[in-house]
């Protein structure tokens, strides 16, 4: 838009990029370096809108107060237990081993004993049906304040599932869809009993790897049996001592574990903050290793496609520009974004219109959008060849189970349209629609939501620990299963409920959930947002116009 306007409009745009007015010629030409600014094309403009609204001050105060009171009570009860006035319900060490060094320190378990135990009925809820858009929960009650549970034997039917990572709805048990998987079970059995390098490399694994490489648009790919293990076993194979890893603040535990096991130096940059990343890159290249000042062997930037607790999307074009300028390598973990974002489900590279060859290592998991288990790493042929020979997983860990492999093949073919139907595209569109609808309605109602508008992960902020628990229980009473997370998975004042929208949810289900949210939100005073959102989409976004002011 800026390029077709008259000269007058062009100059302020260039000025924003750090070029002084006197350097710009009459026709807008200049030969000075431009700062990395906003891109001009549609993709990068639309996806930057990620509001992270702050809660009012009284909320933070009340949250801390809540934690303080619970801690005080915790100390009181510990005292009562030590004195003997209260029964001690936790398991104890064996009599014979009482004089051993204690296995757990007292304060390590303080949080578990006194805070988590009181509210732990909201997690680990067992289900007894498939994790589709609705599922059946097993009813369990506790007679002694959550120390032990017992199952009443009844099931709660048709609870709407807003917690499972079922983005494209492939967690299904439709006999037609699963025919090929059932065939593979009959043919191969369920296990493999060997590692990939020894005798566990089945032809079906090779077929899957070809398909994954085609799907992502890269040269080749390699698959592994567990998503978590993919990260923790392959990062050490890629980097070692003398290398630098720059990882985002909110990276997943598997990435952190892989980075630690590799022995490289780790530096953390603020979440999605490109200035912080650039500063660190510059300093790393110029100063080298900490004390010897030798140059680093490699620099690896580790980011995720969609962050699972925030719902925010990585700023991929900026990261790629930085990576190219400073000659670093990029490791992109698309666990939540593969299959879930992008026009045809190819992940964040498609969302931002970025060439997949620009990302050095693309990693992802099959657990979320494909409804199976396992992970993959894809990229150039040299990279994958090296991993085939040097990855810890290929040498020591069992290969993927054949029916799971078949499920992934089937799901991927469906998304790519190779099975001859448009089912895959329909699901992707449905997911995008559901996401947009759900997010806009929640914002209208007045909840504070984090994350990018396109991400199917929707965290709703609840802040106070007691409200978090009350919210989960109230929603279960209304037959909706939600996931709540608090400290230590999130910062202490930002406890939240996280919704995972799925393509299998119908509009009715979403409406039911939204109505219940409205009710519970009013009941528990959860509508903290002070912004006013209109139901109409923005007609004009002020950043599009470059007014000559």
């Amino acid at each position, binding site marked *: 838009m800026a390029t077709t306007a008259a000269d007058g409009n062009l100059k302020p745009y260039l000025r924003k990029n750090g070029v002084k007015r006197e350097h710009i010629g009459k026709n807008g030409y200049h030969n000075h370096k431009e700062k990395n600014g906003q891109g001009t094309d549609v993709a990068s403009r639309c996806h930057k809108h990620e509001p992270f609204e702050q809660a009012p001050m009284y909320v933070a105060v009340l949250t801390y107060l809540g934690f303080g009171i619970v801690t005080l009570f915790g100390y009181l009860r510990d005292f009562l237990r030590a004195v003997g006035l209260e029964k001690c319900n936790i398991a104890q060490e064996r009599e014979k081993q009482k004089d051993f060094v204690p296995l757990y320190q007292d304060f390590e378990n303080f949080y578990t004993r006194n805070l988590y135990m009181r509210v732990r009925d909201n997690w680990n809820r067992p289900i007894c049906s498939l994790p589709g858009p609705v599922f059946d929960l097993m009813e369990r009650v506790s007679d002694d304040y959550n120390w032990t549970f017992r199952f009443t034997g009844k099931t709660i039917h048709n609870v709407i599932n807003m917690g499972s990572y079922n983005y494209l709805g492939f967690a299904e048990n439709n006999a037609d869809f699963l025919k090929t998987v059932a065939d593979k079970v009959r043919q191969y059995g369920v296990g493999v009993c060997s590692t990939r*390098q020894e005798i566990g490399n089945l032809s079906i694994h090779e077929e899957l790897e070809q398909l994954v490489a085609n799907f992502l648009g890269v040269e080749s790919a390699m698959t592994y049996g567990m998503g978590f293990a993919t990260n923790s076993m392959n990062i050490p194979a890629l980097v070692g001592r003398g290398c630098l890893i720059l990882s985002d603040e909110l990276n997943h535990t598997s990435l952190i574990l892989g980075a630690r096991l590799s022995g490289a130096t780790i530096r953390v940059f603020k979440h999605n903050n490109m200035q912080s990343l650039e500063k660190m890159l510059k300093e790393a290249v110029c100063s080298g290793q900490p004390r010897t000042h030798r140059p680093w062997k490699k620099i690896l930037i580790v980011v995720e496609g969609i962050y699972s607790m925030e719902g925010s999307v990585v700023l991929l074009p900026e990261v790629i520009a930085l990576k190219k300028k400073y000659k670093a390598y990029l490791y992109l973990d698309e666990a939540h974004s593969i299959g879930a974002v992008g026009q045809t489900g190819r992940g964040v590279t498609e969302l931002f219109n970025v060439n997949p060859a620009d990302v050095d290592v693309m990693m992802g998991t099959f657990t979320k959008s494909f409804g199976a288990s396992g992970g993959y790493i894809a990229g150039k042929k040299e990279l994958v060849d090296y991993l085939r020979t040097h990855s810890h997983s290929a040498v020591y860990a069992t290969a993927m189970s054949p029916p799971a492999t078949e499920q992934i093949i089937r799901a991927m073919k469906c998304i790519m349209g190779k099975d001859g139907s448009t089912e895959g595209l329909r699901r992707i569109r449905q997911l995008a629609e559901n996401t947009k609808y759900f997010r806009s309605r929640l914002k209208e109602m007045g909840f504070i939501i984090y994350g990018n508008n396109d991400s199917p992960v929707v965290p709703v902020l609840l802040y106070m620990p007691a409200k978090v628990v009350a919210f989960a229980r109230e929603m279960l009473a209304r037959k909706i299963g939600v996931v709540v997370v608090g400290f230590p998975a999130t910062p202490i004042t930002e406890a939240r409920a996280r919704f995972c929208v799925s393509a299998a949810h119908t509009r009715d289900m979403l409406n039911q959930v939204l109505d219940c949210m409205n009710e519970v939100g009013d009941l528990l005073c959860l509508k903290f947002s002070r912004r006013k959102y209109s139901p109409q989409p923005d007609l004009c976004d002020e950043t599009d116009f470059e007014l000559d002011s």
Partner: protein
Amino acid sequence: WCSQHDWVEDMSAPAYHLILEGILILWIIRLLFSKTYKLHETYKLTEKEKEELIEEWQPEALVPPVSKDYPTLNYDVVTGPPSHKITINGKDCINFASFNFLGLLDNERVKQKALASLKKYGVGTCGPRGFYGTFDVHLELESRLSKFMKTEEAILYSYGFATIASAIPAYSKRGDIIFVDEAACFAIQKGLQASRSLIKYFKHNDMEDLERLLKEQELEDLKNPRKARVTRKFIVVEGLYINTADICPLPELVKLKYKYKVRIFLEESMSFGVLGDHGRGVTEHFGVNIDDIDLISANMENALASIGGFCCGRSFVIDHQRLSGQGYCFSASLPPMLAAAAIEALNIMEEDPDVFRVLREKCKHVYNALQGTPGLKLAGVPVAPALHLELERSSGSRESDMKQLRSVVDYCMERHVALTLARCLEKEERFLPPPR
């Protein structure tokens, strides 16, 4: 005018005093206002120099190139199920290479149960255990495993490698001490690395060496009793070692445990479902009380012919992993199909304890038959289902040894017997086992 004169006389200090003091004052003023000379300012780079450095810096290639005929690059392709008869690279062979010890991989009952579970639950669980990823099959499998092993509780992991690699760091942190056998498998080594504890290796199956280390540690403790009171000590051993195919001396270990007050973690991947009259592993084999072992970890990928792993022991020990085992909390749970297959495999094991005796007979038979092979040395005990054949005389270089063994494997495959080279990462292993 008299007082004035006196005043002048009193005030007339020697002239050089005044001059000296004047110079001193001027010097002080100069020092105060002169620019301070900071040493590290000379190291600050200008913007231009930074740009140059960024231009010049060339990182290493992300991965070093791998030559086309690197031995482990091209995998052997198996078409069809990897059961007793296996089709590898187009040839039909008898399978002597996979860990399918009880032959449950193509058992019809197991497959039927897996199919039923598939119809009910689909394939994946779409979530970790904490967030609606706990299915009733998981709970059933955990309770069945704990009953089978006669312990209080069991915890299920979705991948065998991750089981012991997550269990060790959950208990042992920086500052704790772990005594490990030299022949420990790679998963244990990764667990040790992740735990950041102090690791002490003792010679393989050498109880005197272990006792020596423990005694040394005891002396250290006496020097610093306060620290010793909070330092946890563990011994990590395997029931049946993957790398050497022999059994650990468990009764002696238990004696050492009570003498020096260390806890034992036992890794039973190879011995679960193999040793013992009912397949309960090395504790049954030796008749040791299972409560004496603090934690038993095993994977279900060998005898149980499924995928995943489990840890069992007393609730006091196991419950901790539900919040601090990384592979448990942060990873999706085991697909219910695989859990159902494992339950059925357990059923079969419980119904027919004779299969273990049969396995032991066959192992002894093979062991005796392979004893006298010229040029090759057999490593392992008669009851071990996975044996290693090593070259008697090494040629000196690992590469040529591996080539020779590869040609042995190829020769066997021509004659329809499938063997495999035991794989390991040469640079990563702490104590590199010989080629076999």
